[in-house]
């Protein structure tokens, strides 16, 4: 199976969409659980909670984005290009930063978002600070996204 470059590239693309999506799903779940608790007592805060809950959702989109870029670059959406095994592995490794960092940072950001949600529940005015704290975690997902993008474009 691993003697086809294309299969290896697809493996990378899948992994990226898969792990990024899992990370975001878990992250949004952690945040959502906390938000549901706060909203049950303070329904007015729903808007602020929604913003905080949505923050860990970006890793899934970044993972999806890299998967699409691999598909576009390898012509999977039109006529597939013949890839050597080495090229296939190059694509695979290029997707790794986003795949792994997407999974872990999604979960980490979800936990931070949950904490920020608890804080906002107690002090609604502090939601801006909570958003900033949560966004700090995302920096590393963005750096991973950039690494993967730049690698794929350079292939």
């Amino acid at each position, binding site marked *: 199976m691993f003697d086809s470059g294309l299969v290896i590239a697809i493996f990378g693309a899948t992994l990226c969409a898969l792990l990024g999506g899992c990370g975001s799903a878990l992250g949004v779940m952690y945040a959502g659980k906390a938000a549901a608790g706060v909203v049950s007592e303070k329904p007015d805060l729903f808007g602020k909670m929604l*913003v905080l809950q*949505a*923050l860990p*959702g*970006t890793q899934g*989109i*970044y993972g*999806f*984005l890299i998967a*699409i*870029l691999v598909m576009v670059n390898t012509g999977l*959406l039109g006529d597939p290009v013949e890839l050597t095994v080495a090229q296939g592995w190059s694509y695979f490794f290029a997707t790794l930063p986003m795949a792994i960092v997407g999974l872990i940072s999604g979960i980490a950001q979800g936990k931070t978002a949950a904490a920020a949600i608890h804080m906002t529940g107690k002090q609604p005015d502090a*939601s*801006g*600070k909570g*958003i*900033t704290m949560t*966004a*700090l975690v*995302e*920096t590393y997902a*963005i*750096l991973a*996204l*950039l690494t993967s*993008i*730049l690698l794929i*474009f350079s292939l």
Partner: protein
Amino acid sequence: MIAPMKKVSIVCMREDREKVLKALQHSALMMIEVSDTGVMGDDRESGEHQRRVEQLLRELNKYKEKKGLFAQPTEVNESSFDTLSDDTISLCNSIENLIKKRDELVSEEASLQSITDTLRDWAELKALAQDLKQTESTDVMTVRLPVAKYPLLEERIADLDASFEKVSVNEKTVQLLIVCMKEACHSLRALLSECEAEEIKLPIVSGKIADKLSETNKRLLEVSDEKNAINEQLEASAKSSTADVETLFEQYRASADRAEVRLSETVETVFIEGWVRADCMDKLKSTIEEATPIFDVESRDPKEDEEVPTSLQNSKLVSQFEGITEMFNPPKYNDYDPNAVMAPWYWIIFGMMMGDAGYGLMMAVLIFLGKKLMKPRGGTAKLMNVLLYSSVTTIFFGILFGSYFGEELFPPLIGFTSMSDPIKMLILTLVVGVLHIFTGMITKIVLNVRSGNVLDAIFDQVSWMMIIAGLGMIFIPPLSKVGPIIAIIGALIVLFTAGRAKKGIVGKITGGLGGLYNITSYLSDILSYSRILALGLATGVVGYVMNMLAGMVQNGVIGFILSLLIYIVGHVFNLVLGLLSAYVHSCRLQYIEFYGKFYEGGGTVFKPFGIRTNYINIKKD
């Protein structure tokens, strides 16, 4: 900029307390400093009324339809705000009575229901309730036991001095009437507990049980009818008069707020102390003059060690961005208001992050419509304005980067797109980052020079700007010779001055070396701006995917409709996500990378004593 403040003390007669406070509340000019040892107003009732009406509103809310997204708060004229409407008060009383009646009916219904639940199984009992009494030698009891245990009871009860009658049977339980001799009572109870039987106390003292049951059922129907009628009435009043009740609530709350202000007083006078914006002093005096002829107002400038609330005074454009700083940390009174330097950068960076002319246009249209329909107030209005302004930069950078709904409809004006040459785009975003950071550092230089610390400005800011600029010049061919020299001079300044506050030679050397180590923090600050590229790409690629998906299904009429649907849903989804990311990350770049260079904050916001409004909108006359 930060508006200059005055500390104001007003002395007025005790009997004018209410009038003066009312004038202050309506004008919303003064932030009153309450005195812990002060005395509250005489009006104790308003607070109680406020709580009562609040409770009433909560009840009415259960009956009211949900307010639409575009619902507007009730408008109340300022002059009529202080007059309570007698109609509304009597309406509140009648609604309260209805609610009380409803609650009584609900509890009656529950108790009737429990009676019918118990009696249902005993309807076939022929004896009259008053006859089911113990006599001198016998005991009577009504019991219920599980069907499975009935054979056991039937078999064993024959040995006892007791007789029983099966009153009714259902799927789960058997109901029995048992009469036994008093002597056998003890062993009967033991048998009953073995059979898991439960003694039932019939909730009736006289008459036939069947009669009582039908009577209760009849009453139950009546109660439920009455309850429905009341619910309908409540629904009708919720629909027609919630707005009036809300207004009444705000009126009571305003009076309660006045009563709750603790003021120092003497036998004849009260003393109101607080902060007023210096440019509002004349207005304050004329406001009090209108309320009472006998008063004295004194004002002075704030003292050094006093904590003065901050009121910002910016142009209309800049003031829309104030909320962003306030969310981070409002400036201190003696601080520098960073909004004027932050606003243009927020505007530019937001636009770069969205970076799509199509989405910019969508933002402009949707937010404009939203503003017209929802007529937001306060913070929401400011946020919408920020987004509306940013749609301009979004369109601008979209044209510059050649991105229209994720497609390259027209060639990019800068000659490359983030897809065709991401490295060039990365460099562009980092250059923007350096300019942003330099703006922060120049601001700090200006602040340092203003406060006389010229050397600090050279040692801490100019030196680093030389290092960063010098290192950057290395990559520009004509300047590549000069660059390193500038960078080295900057580094030497840092090396020799970063430890200047430390004592001893060793301290100064380690301080200098430690200062140079700061290069890592500058580096990570600048690299942080690569998110502009990443977010721009994310918006672009997701938009591109939506177009591709829509293109795939575009066959025939159904395909065409389906593709339209994908275009609309997909692009709206992408726009919302893009807006959220751009908003959050533009904020972050201001807070951490930009404010980190010159701004601290930590002030308190000037919140004048005024009429709090949640439900209504007060119109000035």
